[in-house]
């Protein structure tokens, strides 16, 4: 067996150790690689930047705790942008972790100190039923949520006074680790701009919606969050991880390259043997 063929026989535990080291190193010693902003992120930023003070946005925290590492930086960046614009936010969720993630993370941003609960923002909480929950909430917010997550009757909340359906708000933003189809199916028909913050794995499936205009814009994974932070000039978790993301990608490309080199070397050796 040649050295090249041996490249395809490295123990898994060595690969795992190398992966960890390769991700720690750029976090400890930042490379400062420049990050450019893609068209999708720019379109998303411009759509939110065009909102005016007093506008109301539905903010669907539909991402699970397991995928928060990829999606939460986007959610935090957009929440900060919305509050800085003076936009009022209605937080709601179609996953069980959503309301607690809103209470413990998203609303721990600096901008929250100047906002009044019930007037500038509310957390309606989780509505069971998946797509049915999304549909019920979009169709009749106060009917679907008689109480908010903090136990207040929604009829008593000033922010919801004139909001009945998803068509009464100025925009809907959703963050998901599942799929964007549910939101496009159930919320887009109300005719207001729809923006999606997606975990990387489901971004390819959302491209048709972006192209057809059903989604005004999308943010793609951690890179999308980093680009948004760059546009906001407020670097945070997203940008901090970009160097490690780069080196991680290179490692995976190297692994694939090594494996295929070994495979072709072995195939050639066997073909020569058969020829003999």
């Amino acid at each position, binding site marked *: 067996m040649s050295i090249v063929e041996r490249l395809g026989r490295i123990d*898994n*535990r060595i690969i795992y150790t190398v*992966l*960890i080291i390769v*991700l*720690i190193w750029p*976090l*400890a010693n930042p490379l400062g690689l420049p990050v450019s902003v893609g068209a999708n992120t720019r379109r998303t930023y411009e759509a939110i930047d065009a909102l005016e003070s007093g506008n109301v946005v539905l903010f669907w925290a539909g991402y699970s705790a*397991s*995928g*928060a*590492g*990829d999606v939460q930086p986007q959610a935090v960046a957009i929440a900060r942008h919305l509050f800085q614009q003076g936009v009022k936010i209605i937080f709601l969720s179609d996953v*069980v*972790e959503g*309301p607690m993630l809103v209470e413990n993370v998203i609303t721990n941003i600096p901008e929250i100190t100047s906002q009044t609960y019930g007037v500038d923002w509310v957390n309606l*909480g*989780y*509505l*069971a*039923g*998946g*797509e*049915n929950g999304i*549909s019920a909430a979009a169709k009749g917010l106060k009917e679907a*949520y*008689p*109480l908010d*997550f903090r*136990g207040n*009757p929604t009829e008593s909340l000033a922010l919801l006074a004139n909001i009945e359906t998803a068509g009464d708000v100025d925009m809907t933003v959703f963050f998901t680790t599942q799929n964007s*189809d549910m939101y*496009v*199916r*159930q919320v*887009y*028909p109300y005719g207001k701009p729809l923006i999606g913050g997606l*975990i*990387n*794995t489901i*971004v*390819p*499936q959302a491209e*048709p919606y972006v*192209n*057809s*205009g*059903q989604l005004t814009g999308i943010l*793609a*994974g*951690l*890179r999308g969050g980093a680009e948004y932070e760059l546009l906001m000039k407020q670097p945070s*978790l997203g940008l*901090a*991880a970009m160097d*490690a*993301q780069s080196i*991680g*990608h290179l490692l*995976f490309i190297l692994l694939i390259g090594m494996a295929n080199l070994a495979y072709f070397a072995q195939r050639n050796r066997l073909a020569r043997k058969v020829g003999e």
Partner: protein
Amino acid sequence: MSTNPGVWVAAILTVFVYSYLYKENLFYQLTEHLYVGVAAGYTVVIAYTNLQSSVWQPLTAKGDYLVLVPSLLGLMLFAPFISSSLRWVKRLPIAVIIGIGTALTLRATVIAQFTAQLKATIIPLTSIDSVIIVLGTLATLSYFFFTFRQNAALRVSSEIGKWVIMVTFGAAFGNGIMGRISLLIARIQLVFQEWIPLIK
């Protein structure tokens, strides 16, 4: 090192989880069971919150007794716990949920994922990209004709569709890897930044 007990708990549990990568062990098993228990408990708390809002509030504040009907249907889900002969009772609330979910998906899919996407494919063929998009979409659609014998033209189109699908799967593969790396970076930041400050 961090002085926050919460960070210690989170980091140590994370290390226990990743000890599985070396070899399955008792610490990993205990952590796995702890996660399942906590997750199930959390879900019960949220279910309680939902029922307070959707059932108790309308019942007590507005006297809406109709909410007792779906509540009864929901309780039917637990019928098998009472007796195995009542297993069939569980089908009733499931039937209602399936009926609702199916109808909602069906009525919205026709527009959102069928007509809207077909409409978006009908674009002027003014550039190479638009030609690729239109022909690529048609070729991909032709790949999924399995129920009748394909003629020569359809076979060629189907073969092109396979190549287009490979590009789509390659995009999914690349994005999948990117997503997983991001998630691992977040865990590394917890252990090596918040807990043991190796990373500034």
